[in-house]
């Protein structure tokens, strides 16, 4: 079968012409009438409140909720026995965010209570009620033994005792000098601008000429040497005869026997020296142990002062905040607060290994004072 026979197209494309628009026209008429007349002539309201109630979708569990134990049912006849249902209904979820106004509360207290409720979103409870011992929780690993808040020495007080003040100043000066010495003793950095004289083109050729001269001289000497060697070596290449080969084999055997004898000798010697060797071994082990202990102790000591190397940048401690001698006025009001505690707290976090030191934290902090060396 080829194409479908050409049926009448009246239905397919003619339907557009065949639609009746009566109901639409009716509706428009009616609505315009309503609008013009100012009231609905229709008895039917366009919107209504659906008060019909669907049958609640009964969940499977509700069926079994109504059930009662057989034994309880039997005992039902006895009024003394209370029937316990097989499962409890879910507790009503409390709406935390709803504004619950307590009786007798007036506006101000309500506001304050709401302020606190919204501020801490979590409902405040006693988290550490007695008896709740979670043994599953393992022991916490402390990052470092450095305490969180280290109290400064007595010389850092706002009105320090003179000797303590000297001590603290000395420490601060020592830190500064350490930094200066490290900078001085370190390798000199590569200069950004190198010393150079301007060389003209003519001079350049002279430079090259010098180099070329030297090369030629060296080559010449070498060439002459190799020439002599080559002449000497050529006649020496003879065939290795059987005699030579036997001689070599015999020598080899001799050498092997001698080596074995030597070995045996050494063994006997070492057996004789056994106690000495044991002592030597013991000493070595002792040394090793000592070194090991020393290194461990040194590491532990270092850990008390600053964290292990955790990232790309090293930890840089803050300088000791001491009053300079001229700033020591003894008055709380005149105390010049130049340091910020923010930097100090951040440094403390780094010191305990909770924060990895970054590029910025190593930079010079604003509270570095120029020290007057006494």
């Amino acid at each position: 079968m080829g194409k479908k026979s050409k049926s009448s197209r009246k239905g397919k494309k003619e339907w557009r012409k065949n639609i009746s628009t009566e109901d639409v026209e009716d509706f428009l008429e009616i609505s315009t009438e309503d609008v013009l007349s100012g009231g609905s002539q229709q008895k039917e309201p366009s919107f209504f409140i659906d008060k019909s109630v669907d049958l609640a979708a009964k969940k499977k569990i509700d069926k079994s909720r109504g059930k009662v134990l057989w034994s309880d049912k039997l005992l039902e006849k006895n009024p003394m026995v209370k029937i316990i249902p097989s499962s409890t209904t879910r507790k009503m979820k409390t709406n935390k965010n709803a504004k619950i106004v307590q009786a007798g509360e007036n506006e101000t207290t309500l506001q304050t209570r709401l302020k606190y409720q919204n501020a801490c979103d979590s409902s405040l409870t006693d988290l550490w009620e007695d008896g709740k011992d979670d043994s599953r929780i393992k022991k916490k690993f402390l990052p470092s033994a450095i305490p969180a808040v280290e109290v400064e020495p007595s010389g850092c007080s706002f009105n320090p005792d003179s000797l303590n003040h000297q001590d603290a100043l000395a420490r601060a000066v020592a830190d500064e000098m350490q930094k200066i010495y490290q900078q001085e003793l370190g390798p000199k950095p590569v200069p950004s601008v190198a010393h150079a004289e301007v060389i003209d083109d003519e001079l350049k050729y002279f430079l090259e000429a010098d180099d070329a001269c030297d090369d030629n001289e060296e080559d010449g000497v070498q060439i002459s040497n190799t020439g002599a060697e080559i002449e000497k070596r050529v006649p020496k290449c003879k065939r290795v005869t059987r005699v030579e080969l036997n001689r070599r084999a015999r020598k080899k055997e001799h050498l092997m026997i001698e080596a074995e004898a030597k070995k045996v000798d050494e063994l006997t010697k070492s057996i004789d020296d056994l106690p000495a060797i044991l002592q030597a071994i013991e000493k070595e082990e002792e040394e090793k142990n000592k070194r090991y202990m020393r290194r461990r102790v040194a590491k532990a000591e270092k850990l008390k002062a600053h964290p292990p190397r955790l990232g790309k940048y090293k930890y840089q401690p803050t300088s000791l905040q001491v009053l300079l001698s001229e700033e020591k006025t003894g008055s709380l009001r005149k105390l010049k607060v130049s340091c910020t505690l923010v930097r100090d707290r951040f440094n403390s976090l780094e010191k305990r290994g909770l924060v990895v030191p970054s590029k910025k934290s190593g930079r010079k902090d604003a509270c570095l004072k120029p020290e007057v060396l006494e």
Partner: protein
Amino acid sequence: MPKHYRPAGKKKEGNVAKYVTRSQAVKSLQVTLPVFRKLCILKGVFPREPRKKVKGNHHSYYHTKDILFLRHEPLLEKLRDIRSYDKKIKKAVSKKNKDLAERLMMRKPSYTLDRMIRERYPKFVDVLRDLDDCLSLVHLFAALPAVDSTTNGEKIPVSRVHNCRRLSYEWQAYISRTHKLRKTFVSVKGIYYQAVVEGQTVTWLTPHALQQVLSEVDYRILLTFLEFYEALLGFVNFKLYHSINVKYPPILDPQLDALAADLYALTRYFDARSARLGSMTSGSDQMQLQQLPPNEIGSLVQISEGANEYEEDEETRECKNLFKNMNFFLSPEVPRESLLFVISAFGGRVSWDGEGAPFEESDQSISYQVVDRPTLGRKILSREYVQPQWVFDCVNARIILPTANYMVGCVCPPHLSPFVDNEAEGHVPEYAEAIERLKAAQRKEVLPLPGSGKEDFDDPQSLAGIADRAEAIEVAKKRKEMATREKQYFDELRNEVEEYQIADTTVDNEPIQIDNERIDQDLRQLEEDEASRGEALMGRKHRNILKAMKIGIQKKKDDTQRLKKRQKQIKESQVLD
């Protein structure tokens, strides 16, 4: 054959298996770096240092187990949700759909940290151990200026600063009410406080209440720490307030709240509660603050005892009675919050110049007025004018020091640190000695000292360090007997010698001198014998440690000797001048 053969199915081993770098961790958790940082801080995961850094020295390494622990954290999902929600908001904002953006912002999902806190601190004792850092950070942020604009990445929201202030005041109110403060130290950095809460010492640092300048620090990290610590401190305050039967969060007099006199408002709240509990009546006539809801009274009657009766130990009582029945007035130039806290923590009553203060400057009952000016205009004779350092020094010494040194215009004596054990250091500053003498004098008035008490300091036996004094006394007695017998013997000898008329002066002098020296020598010998006996029993390791200790002690002694010499020299030079 391949170089490193590993059987199929076997995972990596060694350091490679135990440690992952930060970038590997971030990739495996499928979060962004800031979210990872936040999660680590909240969860308490921090980088470690492996023995061998397999990927290089410039990475930070985390324990694989820690990262796996993080992966199963429900907060991770929450943070991811928040991130995608933020994207929605951003989209709405960029499409200029203000309505949608606002609606979305209202319903933003959030998370709570209770579970996290419970995980990290299963017991309350653990919290108290870690409370130092928490308190210091919260107090610091309470004093910082809030920066809401996002310049230079610094964004400290105002609400957080206010929350920190509230928490810090609540904590201070608790400490001062229960008289748990023990030591204070004013240094250049800030003011250190130490309190004892449920047997744990808590030390924290507050900044001076002057304008703090913001420095170049990564504030996002600090804010994450602050978030965790805020929640923690909230719960701690809750628990502590409940332990003294006070409702938390406390409802303050809004007038005082508005005047930013938060600490005072809290103390009034405490007083009101205790007054009501003491009365135990359902009437509201004894209430000082009428705004408090009356329905609390019903619940209060059931509470057996009020805030006053909790376990007080010796020290708390001592601290409570230090400034008892003393009224203080603070001038406007002194650090008000700090002094308010300290004075009320030791039982005194404070007032200041301003609205809502308990009593006026002209009140007759004021015993001390704290001023910090170079000169004073007019003085009222019934009260003493002192500098703020007097309060801090009294608190550290636990006695009322004489105010002569702290008068207006004087240079105060040095403010010593109570955290330093002077005897251990060896060097005792002069002022500390003066304070000790005052303390001893005061104690003598209260209790008659036993007769042997004073001599203890001069007794050479105690200085020599003999542990058992009874033993030493016995030994001394024995030596005395021996000495007397020796004396007899030498006397007889001398008589014999005199008979023979040999002029030997050395023999005459020796026996008389020997007695005194011998006793000392013998005592020293005894001490050395005991020490060496102990030493011989130790192993080599212990002996070496003992040697090192002795060297350290000797060094310290030398230092103190040097300092004393210098002091003498300075004094002499001063005298000469």
